[in-house]
């Protein structure tokens, strides 16, 4: 039988075990499926499982390994956020609207993982259309935080974060429009990276806010993320915003020393306002570690970052209101029964198919784009967006990476913020500006606060500087073991 510790074996080690035939992909995949079977009734991290389909891929991977044609990820099961279309898989985006949508094509991300020989373990739960910070907006019910099932896992990629935290999957894809990778990674105690906008193709990734959406990935540690990015990043002609750059090995500089690294500490992120004491404390400890590794800290100013939440809540809903117009009950998806006329068909299909948060954002977006408000809201938000981008450019003149909290607090309780959307929106206050600027960002585990809930540390890099971010995270993880902590529930 299998002798692999699924709690703390890196992807590189798993790959080694597969290639040396210490374990087969079928065995490994089945072991993860068994964990899902055992724990997901509690966590609700997955929307769709299809073990037969998954194991077919595992068998293909085993055949490939036998032919000595394996790549670094061949045979490794990976969970995919249910925002990525995958041929033959129900792809719901967490919505009733797409509760019957079996995708007839693969997202570029899925294509790349399939080509690498990974197995799709299942489709992970998420906030509806990626709109949420707690996973409470999912039509399929909230995901539970593995560290405390009475707490939220964060969102929108809550299912991916919880699955990785509870080691139901060695890694999971995710997407980040305003913090949807980093915030749940922080709240669930895993590592997650959102690359530079345009690095990962958006083709087949269901759109929320096109100018901000970016695919990324979650795993226990930065080294895993580097391997995953090697597969995930790449040009795709089907996405006009995809960036054509030479291929890069994100693992290449992981082991470099940190000596001389300049870490920028943005004043507004440390101003105390809204940042809980436990988060502050974890950050202080992390800075201490970095200094001991030879890094130096400089203060940088991001004067407009406080405006990122209002800018985001104009731009993202505006784009979303238009992106979600295609869901009209005509060609696919949810359709209301017995519509009286065409407008009734639209209005009822959309009223039934969308949940309250999606409706709020569609209405907000329709409002800021409507006649008489476009200049005051939409264009003004785009102007302030430029100011935010300029702030980052100025800051990166003085530092190599920016460090700060990922989220202001540890995981909060269910229904704590659902009645006041603005309070919910503010939980992304430190992550949103990174999307507005299109910069790469990541979150790594940096300690625990009250009730043994994880705290995340955010690292923000300059454009296309993912390799450096991963390097900075990896060096930290070599001298800390926060990322190796597994929630007690995962041992059940």
């Amino acid at each position: 039988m299998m002798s692999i510790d699924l709690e703390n074996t890196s992807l590189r080690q798993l790959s080694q075990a597969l290639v040396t035939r210490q374990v087969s992909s079928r065995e490994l995949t089945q072991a993860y499926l068994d964990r899902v079977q055992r724990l997901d009734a509690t966590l609700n991290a997955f929307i769709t499982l299809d073990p037969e389909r998954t194991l077919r891929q595992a068998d293909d991977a085993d055949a490939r390994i036998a032919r000595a044609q394996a790549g670094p990820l061949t045979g490794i099961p990976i969970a995919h956020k249910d925002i990525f279309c995958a041929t033959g898989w129900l792809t719901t985006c967490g919505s009733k609207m797409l509760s019957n949508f079996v995708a007839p094509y693969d997202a570029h991300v899925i294509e790349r993982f399939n080509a690498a020989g990974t197995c799709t373990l299942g489709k992970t739960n998420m906030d509806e259309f990626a709109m949420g910070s707690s996973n409470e907006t999912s039509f399929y019910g909230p995901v539970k935080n593995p560290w405390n099932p009475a707490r939220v896992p964060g969102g929108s990629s809550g299912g991916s974060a919880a699955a990785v935290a509870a080691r139901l999957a060695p890694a999971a894809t995710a997407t980040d429009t305003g913090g949807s990778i980093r915030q749940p990674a922080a709240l669930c105690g895993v590592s997650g990276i959102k690359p530079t906008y345009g690095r990962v193709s958006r083709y087949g990734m269901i759109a929320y806010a096109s100018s901000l959406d970016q695919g990324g990935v979650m795993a226990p540690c930065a080294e895993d993320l580097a391997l995953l990015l090697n597969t995930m990043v790449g040009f795709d002609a089907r996405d006009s915003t995809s960036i054509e750059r030479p291929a890069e090995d994100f693992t290449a500089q992981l082991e470099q020393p940190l000596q001389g690294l300049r870490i920028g500490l943005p004043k507004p992120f440390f101003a105390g306002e809204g940042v809980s004491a436990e988060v502050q404390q974890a950050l202080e400890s992390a800075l201490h570690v970095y200094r001991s590794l030879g890094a130096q800290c400089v203060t940088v100013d991001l004067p407009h970052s406080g405006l990122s939440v209002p800018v985001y809540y104009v731009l993202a809903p505006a784009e979303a209101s238009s992106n979600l117009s295609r869901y009209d009950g005509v060609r696919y998806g949810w359709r209301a029964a017995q519509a009286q006329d065409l407008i009734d068909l639209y209005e009822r299909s959309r009223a039934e198919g969308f949940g309250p948060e999606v409706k709020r954002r569609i209405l907000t977006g329709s409002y800021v784009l409507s006649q008489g408000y476009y200049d005051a809201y939409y264009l003004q938000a785009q102007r302030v967006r430029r100011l935010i981008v300029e702030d980052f450019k100025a800051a990166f003149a003085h530092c190599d990476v920016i460090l700060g909290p990922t989220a202001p607090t540890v995981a909060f309780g269910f229904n704590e913020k659902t009645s006041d959307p603005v309070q919910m929106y503010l939980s992304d206050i430190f992550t949103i500006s990174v999307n507005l600027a299109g910069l790469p960002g990541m979150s790594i585990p940096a300690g625990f606060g009250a009730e043994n809930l994880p705290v995340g540390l955010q690292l923000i890099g300059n454009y296309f500087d993912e390799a450096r971010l991963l390097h900075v995270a990896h060096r930290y993880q070599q001298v800390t073991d926060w990322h190796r902590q597994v929630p007690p529930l995962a041992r059940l």
Partner: protein
Amino acid sequence: MPLNDTDLKRLARLARIRLEPQELASLAPQFAGILDLIQQLQAVPTQGIEPLAHALDLEQRLRADEVTEADGRALFQPLAPEMEQGLYLVPQVIE
């Protein structure tokens, strides 16, 4: 300036989302909060600042004029709620 029910109904109509009276009642205060949030932008001086649509200053790539898509009816039509003779059916469109 908070939106009244008529404004919200107009928006819902524009977005083709039917709102039940109780939804409207809970939406109004939430919407007021969201408007307060985004209202903060009005105070920011932005004269002479060009609006930014994409963070990276890139230009559109152009596709060669080639037919690359085959007939996908067998893939796409099973997804449709209602089809007849290869057409998507909807309640009568009035012109």
